């Protein structure tokens, strides 16, 4: 070595069904010699009433009503009955009873589709059967629009046939209520669902692609089943703020190093672990927590094994309650260096546990009567906090809000100056509504502060 001195250098898919009337195109009959000439068409000018043409033959459906229209439904008339009129009436009555039931079932299915809920078919059918006994309660209007009888000429033994067209209007609101209250539909969409992932593989570090696959697939499965999935990115900003408030460093969450950043974000998304009072914080964002744990990712004897467990917990009445769990394991041949193979297996296991867990969760949710009783179909619970307001003013607010008709008042907490209520609509609409409502009573609550993914509005005059 030489040592030299240098100078210092310093989907949603919308399907539109377009019904076209049958169109007959008249062909050009060039060969006029072979076919007889049709008689020349008789052309006459029509002069029909325009209003009559435009007016519908049956009423329209609406958000609150389901319209079932049936055309030309046929039924044989009992030819053993001597009283023909009675036999015909019976045949028509039989059609109408069937159609009412049919309309009711179609409406129930429609309601289910509209609330985007999966249904436990057995339970759903049981509730529909029970409800259909009182179907008249749900039929707002119905009408027979056509009734014909086809009689046979001569001494034919072929029975007569009655032909009926009718429509029924079903009250969807009433139907939805009974379906939900009796557990035919589990209203899971109102459960804000959050997925946490834990890597519980001893002495092994995480693989970002596998983690992303697992989380993505669990979220997709629950989203497709109708749950309102809260994505981490939606609440990340809030969580970072909370992290800072708790005196923790957020540098790694935005680190340049991809792996470091990924790990920090994964840690942050596990709210319960990352924060003091994590369970309480989590409850601000979600009602339903799906915790997925990767227990085994290993290659032994050239075989790749992935094992995962998942747990669903529900936040109810101030605490997290375990609802259901599921686990699955899969072993396939290991392919040297193939992350694709690992991801494929992880995906299969994820789908298996999600498909097993989701119906269990739904069943458990359906059985939680307290939930069904206290919550209306699309309502969400909100907490309103009135900061720096004296006891007297808070009492006025409480009294005023307890009389509001736009929400369901659920109670107040003087200590925290909090009001609890259920409201069907967005948090920003509620915030504005409360402010206007109180100001109308001469109370100035201040401007409400909230974030879209939380269920708490803080009113303050600061």
């Amino acid at each position: 070595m030489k040592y030299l001195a240098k100078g210092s250098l310093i989907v949603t898919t919308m399907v539109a069904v377009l019904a076209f009337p049958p169109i007959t195109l008249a062909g050009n009959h060039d060969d006029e010699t072979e076919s007889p000439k049709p008689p020349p068409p008789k052309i006459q000018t029509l002069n029909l009433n325009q209003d009559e043409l435009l007016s519908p033959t049956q009423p329209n459906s609406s958000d609150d009503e389901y319209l079932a229209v049936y055309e030309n439904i046929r039924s044989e008339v009992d030819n053993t009955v001597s009283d023909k009129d009675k036999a015909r009436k019976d045949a028509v009555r039989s059609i109408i009873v069937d159609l009412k039931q049919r309309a009711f079932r179609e409406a129930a299915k429609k309601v289910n589709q509209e609330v985007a809920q999966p249904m436990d078919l057995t339970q759903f059918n049981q509730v529909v059967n029970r409800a259909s006994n009182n179907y008249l309660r749900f039929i707002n209007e119905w009408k027979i629009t056509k009734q014909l009888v086809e009689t046979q000429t001569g001494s034919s033994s072929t029975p007569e046939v009655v032909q009926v067209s009718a429509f029924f209007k079903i009250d969807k609101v009433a139907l939805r209520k009974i379906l939900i209250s009796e557990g035919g539909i589990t209203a899971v969409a109102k459960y804000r669902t959050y997925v946490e992932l834990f890597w519980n593989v001893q002495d092994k570090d995480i693989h970002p692609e596998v983690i992303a696959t697992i989380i993505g697939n669990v979220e997709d499965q629950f989203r497709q089943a109708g749950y309102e999935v809260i994505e981490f990115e939606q609440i990340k900003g809030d969580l970072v703020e909370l992290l800072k408030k708790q005196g923790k460093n957020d540098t790694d969450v935005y680190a340049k190093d991809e792996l470091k950043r990924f790990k920090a974000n994964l840690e942050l998304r596990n709210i319960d672990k990352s924060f003091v009072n994590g369970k309480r914080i989590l409850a601000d964002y979600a009602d339903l927590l799906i915790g997925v744990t990767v227990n085994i990712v290993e290659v032994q004897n050239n075989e790749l094994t992935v094992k995962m467990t998942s747990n669903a917990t529900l936040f109810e009445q101030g605490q997290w309650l375990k609802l259901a769990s599921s686990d699955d394991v899969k072993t396939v041949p290991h392919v040297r260096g193939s992350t694709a193979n690992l991801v494929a297996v992880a995906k299969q296991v994820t789908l298996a546990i999600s498909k097993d867990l989701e119906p269990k969760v739904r069943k458990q949710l359906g059985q939680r009567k307290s939930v069904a009783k206290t919550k209306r179909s699309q309502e969400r619970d909100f907490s309103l906090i009135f900061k720096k307001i004296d006891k007297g003013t808070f009492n006025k607010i409480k009294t005023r809000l307890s009389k509001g008709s736009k929400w369901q008042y659920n109670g107040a907490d003087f200590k925290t100056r909090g009001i609890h209520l259920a409201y069907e609509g967005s948090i920003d609409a509620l915030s504005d509504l409360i402010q206007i409502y109180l100001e109308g009573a001469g109370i100035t609550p201040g401007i409400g502060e909230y974030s879209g993914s939380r269920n708490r509005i803080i009113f303050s005059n600061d």
Partner: protein
Amino acid sequence: MRSLPSQNLEVYVREPVDASREGSYYPFLRHVQEVLIHKAQNNGYTVVNSPTNAKAYLETQFRIGKQSLQLFLSLKDADSRNTIGSATVELASSALPIDWKDRTLKDIAFELATKLDEQLFGQKLSILIDEFSGGKAKTDSFVSDFSILMRGYIREEVGSLDTFRILIEGSTSAQQYSLQGHYQVLGNEVFLRLKVIKVGSNHAIANASSRFSLGTVPSGVGMFPPNEIQAKESTDEIKSDAISKTTAQTVTVWVNHDDRNYRDGDPLTVSLRPDTDLYVRVYYVQSDGVICQIMPSRSGEAGYIRKGYVYEIGGAQDDVELIISDETVGQESIKVFASRGPIDDNNLPKRFISGANVSCLEDNYQKLVETLTRALKMKYRVRPASEVKILVRR
């Protein structure tokens, strides 16, 4: 294959694996797999690319005999793993290509990387390829042509796997793991072992080994440095890696050539990054045993380095330049001694070498260690803290 059931089945044909405990890799078995794929297709199977799409797996184990290659085939149901059919094939060497048993050092590297990957699969590890050294004895830690070459091959193979993210030496990113290699020459065989160590805990999370014939090493690739005796004299207890650090005196040291291979005229930059505030002495130990102090570069300087900074000796910002010369060749090393308190090295006999423009010691390495570490009067002990070995060639 005749005894295997012939039916329209989606089959995944697995890579043949060594039936022995060694788990050796022979590139010829790749051709065997290709042949098996063709055979499976001819047998009416649909060969799929992913095991997750298969209804059955065609598994092959091989055994290398002196004069033959044995293949044990079995077709297994993907779900139950029950054997649907099996067959044994023995191929005489005479029926195989002449080089069917050949393996290169690259193949050994492939095998070792595969073994490590199997143990660590499913993770993403930021890893530093650390020192590869060895010799005849278990305790030898020579850097040689072989160790440098093998380190390069391993780096290449490990780097091609998704499990690993290779870090550049001195990288400040989340380095958590270190890969070290040690070889031992045992008669006509070489035993090479790799370890992946978790930084901080010094706990090995994976290790893999391979035993292969010395004949696999190309001629001209030395298994030992030419200055074997001198190099042995400068060996001490310190781990020569950037991650095995002694007590609280921790300093990471690296050089500007990732492969640690230098030739005449190559500039040398030594970088230091302490984990705590320290006083240091950095020595360059030449292959002939001469030891020269390269930090502090001026007499009277304390050699104080602070946590959070990287100090470069011979770097663009330094006031000295280090150039490798081939006057001495073989294993040379950079040794760092560190202490929490000022280091008193007044007792070290030094002489200034004007041609090299550097102060060198008059004693050998063992004397240096004795003198520096014996200082009982000092409040803080001086310890060998870190080391990088390089190979200087003509």
